[in-house]
C-alpha cells in the first residue's frame, strides 16, 4: 500500500496527463460512435429489414478481438490516436445503435398516432416525443458503450496513443504492481464518474442533452486546436520503446540536442509501444527520432532475412545501416558502445575463482555448471542451442521464469543464467557477463534512427547525437537501469548525471 502511494505521488503529473489523454480518446470515440449510430438507428426504425442487417453487422464487429482490430488498422492508418479511436468507435457502435433502435421501436404506437394526428412533422415528432421517450434506453446504451470504451482504451497505449494503458503496460514491463494498479484503478474510477455523469443526463430534456454534447465538443475541439497550435512551433519529437533503458536514452538525446541548439525544442514520447509501432510512426513522420538496436534492424525490420550470428559489432552496424538506407530511406546513426544482447552471466565471485573471461573458458568448468534459463532462450537457435553447438558445451539447464532465475543464482541453487547484458539485476545480484568471443549472439547496439531527409535537414542534431557514439558501456547502462528501476530515480535525472560526469555537455555559458 505504501508503495502504491509513493509511486502515485512520484507520477502524479504523468497520471494527470494520461487521464486527460484517456478521457480525450474515450470521449472522442464515444461522440463519433453516437454521431454514427444514433442517426443510423433513427433512419432504420422505419426499415426493419435493414435494421436487422445492421444489428448483425455491428454485432459481428464487436466480436473482433480488440488487439486484432488494432493490428489490422495499423497498415491502414498507421499508429497513434487515429487507429485507437477507430477501434473504440467500432466497439461502441453496437450498444448505442441497439439501444437507440430499441428505444424508438418500443414507443407506444398510440403516442405515435397521437403525434401524427396533431400534425407534428417528422423532425418535431422526433425531438418532442420519440427521442425524449427513448432517452432512458439510449442513455443506458451510451453508458454501456462508455464503460466498454474506457476499459478498451487502455489498449491504446500499445499503439502509441497514450492514456492510462501506459501505466499498465509499463507496470507489466517493469514488473511493478503499483503502476498496474494505479492505471487500472484510475481507468475504473474514470468509467464510474463518466457513467454517473451520463446517467444524470437521462432525465434531462433533449435541449440540455444537446447543449452538454455541444460543450463537450467545443472543449475537445479546443483541446485539439490548442495542441495543434502548440505543435506548430518547430519541435523535434523523440520516442522510445517501453522500459527504462530507452527512456534514459531519449532523455540523453533531448539534453544533448537542446544543449547544442537553443532554438530546437524536443518533445519526448517515452513508453511509446513496441518496435513495429515506433518504426511505423517514424516512417509516417509522426515522430522524428527513436533509438533502435542494430540487431533488431536486421532481425525484425529488414524485409529480407539477414544473417546475424558470427558478425562483429561493427559488421552488424554497417549492415543494418545499409539495409535501413536502401530499404526505407532511413538513417541509422553510429551506435553506442554497449551491446544489449543475450548473454551468459555468472556470479562475479565464481568468475574470479575459475578465471572465466569468455564463454569458451566455460569448457574448463563444464562438469560443475548448473544452469537456470528462460524457456525462450533455451529454445532459440541463437540462444542455448547455438551456444552448445558453437562452443561445444553441454551442461544441465532448468527452465525458469526470468525473475526466478536471478533469485536462484543468488541463493546458489544454480551457477549460470541467461541475461540481457544491460539488465539492472546483473548489478543488483553481483553477476558478471562472459564475453561472447565467437560472436554467437547477434549484436544489439543502440543507435538513433531517423529519416535520411531529417538527418540531411538537421546536421546539427546529427552531430549532437553522434557524441554518444562509442559511449556507454554495458556496466554503465546496467548501473543507470538500476538507478531507475530499483532506486526510483527519474530517467531524466539519471541521463543528466551521466552526461555531466562524462563531460558530454558543453559547459553552460
Amino acid at each position, binding site marked *: 500500500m505504501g508503495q502504491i502511494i509513493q509511486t502515485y505521488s512520484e507520477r502524479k503529473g504523468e497520471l494527470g496527463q494520461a487521464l486527460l489523454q484517456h478521457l480525450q480518446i474515450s470521449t472522442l470515440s464515444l461522440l463519433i460512435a453516437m454521431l454514427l449510430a444514433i442517426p443510423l438507428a433513427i433512419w432504420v426504425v422505419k426499415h426493419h429489414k435493414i435494421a436487422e442487417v445492421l444489428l448483425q453487422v455491428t454485432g459481428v464487429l464487436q466480436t473482433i478481438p480488440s488487439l486484432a482490430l488494432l493490428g489490422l488498422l495499423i497498415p491502414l492508418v498507421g499508429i497513434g490516436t487515429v487507429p485507437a479511436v477507430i477501434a473504440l468507435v467500432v466497439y461502441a457502435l453496437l450498444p448505442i445503435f441497439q439501444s437507440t433502435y430499441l428505444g424508438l421501436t418500443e414507443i*407506444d404506437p*398510440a*403516442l405515435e*398516432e*397521437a*403525434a*401524427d*394526428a*396533431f*400534425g*407534428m*412533422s417528422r423532425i*418535431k415528432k422526433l425531438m*418532442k*416525443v420519440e427521442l*425524449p*421517450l427513448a432517452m432512458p434506453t439510449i442513455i443506458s446504451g451510451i453508458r454501456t458503450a462508455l464503460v466498454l470504451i474506457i476499459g478498451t482504451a487502455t489498449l491504446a497505449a500499445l499503439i502509441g496513443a497514450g492514456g492510462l494503458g501506459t501505466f499498465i503496460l509499463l507496470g507489466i514491463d517493469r514488473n511493478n504492481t503499483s503502476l498496474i494498479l494505479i492505471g487500472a484503478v484510475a481507468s475504473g474510477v474514470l468509467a464510474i464518474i463518466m457513467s454517473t455523469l451520463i446517467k444524470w443526463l437521462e432525465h434531462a430534456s433533449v435541449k440540455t442533452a444537446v447543449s452538454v454534447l455541444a460543450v463537450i465538443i467545443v472543449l475537445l475541439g479546443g483541446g485539439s486546436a490548442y495542441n495543434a497550435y502548440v505543435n506548430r512551433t518547430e519541435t523535434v519529437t523523440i520516442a522510445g520503446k517501453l522500459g527504462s533503458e530507452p527512456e534514459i536514452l531519449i532523455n540523453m538525446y533531448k539534453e544533448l540536442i537542446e544543449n547544442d541548439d537553443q532554438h530546437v525544442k524536443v518533445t519526448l514520447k517515452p513508453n511509446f509501444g513496441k518496435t513495429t509501432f515506433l518504426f511505423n510512426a517514424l516512417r509516417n513522420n509522426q515522430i522524428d527520432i527513436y533509438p533502435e538496436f542494430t540487431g533488431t534492424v536486421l532481425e525484425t525490420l529488414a524485409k529480407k532475412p539477414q544473417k546475424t550470428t558470427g558478425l562483429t559489432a561493427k559488421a552488424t552496424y554497417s549492415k543494418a545501416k545499409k539495409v535501413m538506407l536502401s530499404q526505407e530511406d532511413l538513417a541509422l546513426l553510429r551506435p553506442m558502445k554497449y551491446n544489449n544482447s543475450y548473454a551468459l552471466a555468472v556470479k562475479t565471485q565464481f568468475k574470479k575463482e575459475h578465471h572465466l573471461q569468455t564463454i569458451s573458458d566455460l569448457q574448463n568448468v563444464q562438469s560443475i555448471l548448473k544452469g537456470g534459463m528462460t524457456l525462450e532462450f533455451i529454445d532459440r537457435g541463437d540462444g542455448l542451442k547455438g551456444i552448445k553447438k558453437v562452443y561445444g558445451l553441454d551442461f544441465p539447464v532448468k527452465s525458469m521464469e526470468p525473475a526466478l532465475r536471478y533469485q536462484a543464482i543468488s541463493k546458489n541453487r544454480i551457477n549460470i543464467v541467461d541475461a540481457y547484458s544491460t539488465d539492472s539485476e546483473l548489478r543488483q545480484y553481483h553477476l558478471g557477463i562472459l564475453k561472447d568471443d565467437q560472436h554467437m549472439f547477434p549484436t544489439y547496439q543502440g543507435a538513433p534512427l531517423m529519416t535520411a531527409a531529417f538527418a540531411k535537414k538537421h546536421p546539427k542534431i546529427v552531430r549532437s547525437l553522434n557524441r554518444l557514439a562509442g559511449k556507454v558501456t554495458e556496466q554503465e547502462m546496467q548501473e543507470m537501469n538500476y538507478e531507475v528501476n530499483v532506486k526510483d530515480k527519474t530517467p531524466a535525472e539519471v541521463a543528466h548525471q551521466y552526461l555531466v560526469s562524462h563531460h558530454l555537455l558543453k559547459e553552460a555559458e
Partner: protein
Amino acid sequence: MTTAIEFQAVQKSFGETAVISGMDMQVQQGERFVLVGSSGSGKTTSLKMMNRLEQPTAGQVLINGKPAQDYPLQKLRWMMGYVLQQIALFPNMTVAQNITLIPEMKGTPKAQLQQLADSLLDRVGLSPAKYRNRYPRELSGGEQQRVGILRAISSQPPIVLMDEPFSALDPISRKDLQDLVLDIHQQLHNTIVFVTHDMDEALKIGNRIGIMSDGQLLQAATPQEIAQHPANDFVRDFFKTSVAKNVYDRPVSQLLLAVTPLTDLSSQQQSAAGRLAEDAALRDVFQALSINENVEIIAQTGQSRGYLNRQLLLNYLSQNED
C-alpha cells in the same frame, strides 16, 4: 347547413382484407355525429380516413367540400382535434404542455400558452394551480382523458374526432366526460365525430347516429328515426340489444325516442305535473306517475321536452317487453 365531412364511395382494405366496402356518408357542420357498431365494423378506420391517418383504397373523403388529400397534411390535421381511446398523453410533458401542444406548434407566444392552459383546466373543473405542472402518470384515467379532450380542442378546431374515448374508463368518469363533451359542443358549436360501440353512449352524445356493420354504413339518422324506423332488422336488433337490459333502468330520454310526449296540457295540468330530468331512469317515472297525473321531462339544457302520462308509459312498456 354545410357538409363538414363527406364520404363518396369510400373503400378501404388492408392487404386482401376489405374493411370498408363502399361507404357514402355526410356529416353536417355543427353536428354531433356518432358512428356506432361492434368491433371490426370499420368505424375506427372510417374516422382515421378523415384526418388521413389512413388513406382510402378507393373513393373520396371531402372535408368542407374539398378532397382531404388536397389539403397540406399539417393544415388538415390542425383543423381536427383528435381524442384517442388510449388517451395517449405524452408522458414526457406536463399537463399544461400536453394541452397547449398544438397552439405551441402554431407559434402562440409562451405567456398566452400558460393562460390558455389555465383557462381550459378551469373549464373542466381541474384546478390549474394543482394540475398544470403534473405529469400524466400522476392523474387518474378520467382526469387524463379530460386533459386529452382539452388537448384536442385547445386551438378550437372546427372538427373534433373522438375514437372510443371513454371505453376504458369507469362508469362514473364516463358519464362525467359524456356531459363534458355535450357541454363543450354547446359552447364551441364545433362538429364532433364520435366513435363508440356502446349504443347508450351513442344515444346520449349523438344528434345523428350512423350504425355500422361489416364495413358498411347501414343507417345514418337521428336517434328517433332509428328507433321508430330502423332501416333493417339488423339495425332494429342492434338498437334493442344495445339499450340497457332492464327496461326500468333505461333513461327517460330513450323512451322519448319512441314516444311523442304531450305538449297540449292545460296550464292547470302543467302546474300539477311532477318534474324529472331526461337522464332519470324509468322506475323514477313510475314513482312520479304514481303521485302525479303528468310528469314534465326537462332536458339537460333546462328546456322542457314535453309531458308523459301513465298511458304513454304503459304503451312504451308493452312495445318493449323482452
